[in-house]
């Protein structure tokens, strides 16, 4: 199956793109996807913690099972509003 990976903020800058397509074995979970991302982009997630994952714009756990054409977003720490 193939999912669309969306990245934001420093992840987008590091990747040099805001989204990329990723092929995964059938039955892959979010945790499997993260391992695949780390193999393909070893430095992408370095030091980014906590990292949340959203599938089709809903936050999910690592055990969440992915489906073909899912939109998977890597969500680094947010900082909306003002101040730090």
């Amino acid at each position, binding site marked *: 199956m193939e999912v669309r990976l*969306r990245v*934001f*903020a*420093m992840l*987008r800058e*590091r990747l040099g793109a805001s989204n990329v397509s990723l092929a995964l074995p059938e039955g892959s979970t979010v945790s499997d996807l993260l391992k695949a991302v780390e193999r393909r982009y070893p*430095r992408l997630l*370095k*030091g*980014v913690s906590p990292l*949340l994952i*959203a599938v089709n*714009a809903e*936050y999910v756990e690592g055990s969440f099972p992915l489906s073909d054409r899912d939109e998977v*977003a890597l*969500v*680094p*720490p*947010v*900082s*909306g*509003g*003002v*101040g*730090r």
Partner: protein
Amino acid sequence: MILVTRDPLDPEAITAEVRSEACGGVVTFLGTTRNETDGRRVVSLEYEAYEGMAEKILERVAQEVRERWGVDRLAIAHRLGRLELGEVSLVVAVASPHRAEAFAACQYVVGRLKQDVPIWKKEVFEDGEVWVGAETSRHPSTVV
């Protein structure tokens, strides 16, 4: 009203939208661009969002406010893109018959924006830039 937009925000219009003759008070929070962070001079800011999802989460925040404080006259507007110093990045306006609820609800919403609403801020300094919350200060030479 939930708004995530690249256009400049109009705090007065947003506040006017929540005001009503049934409410004795309106609490408004304006977030503006600060000119320094930890002593370093900020030149400009840049906001980025996972659009669609950010709005969805903000709708959920509004729902929480309704349930917790019985407040349903609430507006949240967040600006995206590059902002100059002093420009308004955030407007949260809450009207309520009782002022304590309006203050509590407004403060809650501003705090929630630091939790899981997918909006990010980059501070641009004279000699570097940093994505707030996710990176330690970074100079151009150390960019990955």
